[in-house]
């Protein structure tokens, strides 16, 4: 598989992120079920799954690109487009949903001019809907990056967003 090795060498030796991913792929390429940990790693390093990197994964792990795309598009955790600097995850789990978390999503969307799954044009925010965050007592709940906001009403939204501007 000289071809596959060549592609791994496409990673710039001076790019520390690329080298981290390369090392991880090398460690996992012969492990059954290695694809998902590799995708996690790429997502962690780059914040999303860049096309070029997935081509390299396909070549070096000998997994068809269509299969990788199938996995990447199946799990909502993975993103095929770059995410914003801050990721907003609004809970749409049962408890939050009955406490009208949809109104919170709508309000954030209105404020930022995006819909669920999109990123603002300045690259600052990505809006996502998520399932139970395990804080039902605080419903409705959302997280921005790793910070939790609970007992939300839609008028809280502008103030919270301004904290991240």
């Amino acid at each position, binding site marked *: 598989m000289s071809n596959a090795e060549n592609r791994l060498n496409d990673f710039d030796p001076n790019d520390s992120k690329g080298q981290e991913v390369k090392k991880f792929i090398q460690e996992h390429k012969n492990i059954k079920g290695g694809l998902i940990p590799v995708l996690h790693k790429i997502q962690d390093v780059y914040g999303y799954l860049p096309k070029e990197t997935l081509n390299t994964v396909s070549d070096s792990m000998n997994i068809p690109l*269509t299969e990788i*795309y199938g996995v990447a598009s199946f799990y909502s955790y993975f993103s095929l487009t770059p995410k914003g600097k801050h990721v907003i995850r609004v809970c749409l789990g049962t408890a939050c949903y009955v406490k009208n978390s949809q109104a919170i999503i709508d309000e954030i969307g209105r404020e930022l001019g995006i819909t669920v799954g999109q990123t603002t044009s300045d690259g600052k925010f990505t809006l996502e809907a998520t399932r139970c965050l395990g804080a039902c007592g605080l419903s409705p709940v959302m997280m921005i990056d790793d910070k939790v906001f609970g007992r939300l009403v839609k008028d809280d939204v502008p103030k919270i967003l301004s904290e991240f501007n």
Partner: protein
Amino acid sequence: MDIVKFTIDGKEIEVPKGTTVLQAARANGINIPSLCYLKDVNKTAACRVCLVEVGPKLIASCSLEAENGMAVKTNTKKVRDARRTVVELLLSNHKRECLTCIRSENCELQSLAKELNIRDIPYEGEKIKGDLDVSSKSIVRDPEKCILCGRCISTCGDVQSVYAIGYGNRGFKTKVTPAYERGLGDTVCTNCGQCIMACPVGALHEKENIVDVWKAIEDPEKVVIVQTAPAVRVALGEEFGLQRGTRVTGKMTAALKKLGFDYVFDTDFGADLTIMEEGTELLNRLNENKNLPLMSSCCPAWVKFVEHYYSDMLDNLSTCKSPSEMEGALIKSYFANKMGIDPKKIVSVSIMPCVAKKFEGDREELGKDGLSDIDYVLTTRELARMIKEAGIDFNNIEDDEFENPFGEATGAGVIFGATGGVTEAALRTIYEITSGEELKDVEFKAVRGTEGIKETEVKLKNGKTVKAVVVNGLANARKVLDEIKAGSKKYDFIEVMACPGGCVTGGGQPIINSREREEIDIKAQRAKGIYDEDKSLPIRKSHKNPYIIKLYKEFLGEPNSHVSHEYLHTHYVKRNKF
């Protein structure tokens, strides 16, 4: 072998261990309907149509192994209701334009709805939305008709190792799609069309050119010339209810004339010509020990496969155009000149068992002075549709013949339609040319048959041994190429036909539904027609074709001459793997 004893609907059944309940039932004349199951290809148990009752449970029989003492029920109210609900739900999310669908009356979902007595679809809900994908030159995808059975995905991946399509997204949004939801035309798809053959519904079909061809025929300014590939004549009759594999060469040529084509030629002539050119090319490469193994280039899906996945081996591909393209090039030059026809007025049509030929026909390098060698490619299925549309009584039409100079072909040209045919035809000629002796037994049995990979060695009179391998199915081709690259195998010549079985079971041939596929060996049946035709012909070696001899004398000079290269040879391009 371990035997399992169990019952289906009270009937005692014995089968080898490992047999599924579905297989056991069918082998014992018990009908269980199925949809996503495709023997040897797809067993995803995704559709749930083949549910049976075992104890308190409903289980998909296609993936349920029979066990000792098992009591299976296939015909209870619970089973019937569940199956009906499954099909009703499928139909509720299906674009039901059955009257105008290309697969009308040849659709497995439609047959099931009929078989299960479905009169109403009680579920009204949102339907999956998706744009028609017309980006490919050969294949059209309609996601709104797709039932997500996965038969195309297994075929493209496991059988062909092309992996152009897979599942994307999940839940209601699940779809069969190329990576990144690109158009099929923008992928590694080789256009082999085996996905069409696997699709139970109208979600995949060829890009039709019927309207274009009618228009050309209607145009009094145009001279419309048609040629038909060897495999078409052993399959076309099936579309008119004739037995699978029936030879209808005479009826086909008669019908083509009735449709209004001005000249009806035989691609078999192009095949004979290919043998002259490719055989000479092989002998030259053997002498120079250069670019070996020589890889056949008749099959456009195989050529595109190499361009994408093995672009470091492009020099191994024969530079010969495919037989139909060679003939197309001669129609607009040698023939036009001979007849005093302006080549610009010629519309060249080929009838092919293939959808990849549509892509090939559109390749820029296959033409000269702004004129394409082939203008339109129709599949066997499209030709049948035209014949029906014209109201021609195909089964009762009187036999006719191909016209010359491209109507006379040898048995060697005919066998191009089946896997191994190119090799056998080449060996017949190479043997005689190198030895100067007559070959008594022209049948090279070692390269016949539908096995995926067949090796043979022929010792030539000059002492050289030609080691050839005959491959059908692209996953087999991948295996052979990987072995060559790894150095574990060495050959002088590789023949590849992308479709399992060769052109006789190409992606443009009449569609065989999943049940019939289980019951008959369609590859062998159609191949038999091909070999029968070979046997029936007075001349069975390409270099003995009098019109081939005349063509070289009048126009080409000799094989691989400068003129030959100008008209009959081509080059290839490196394509992206992703």
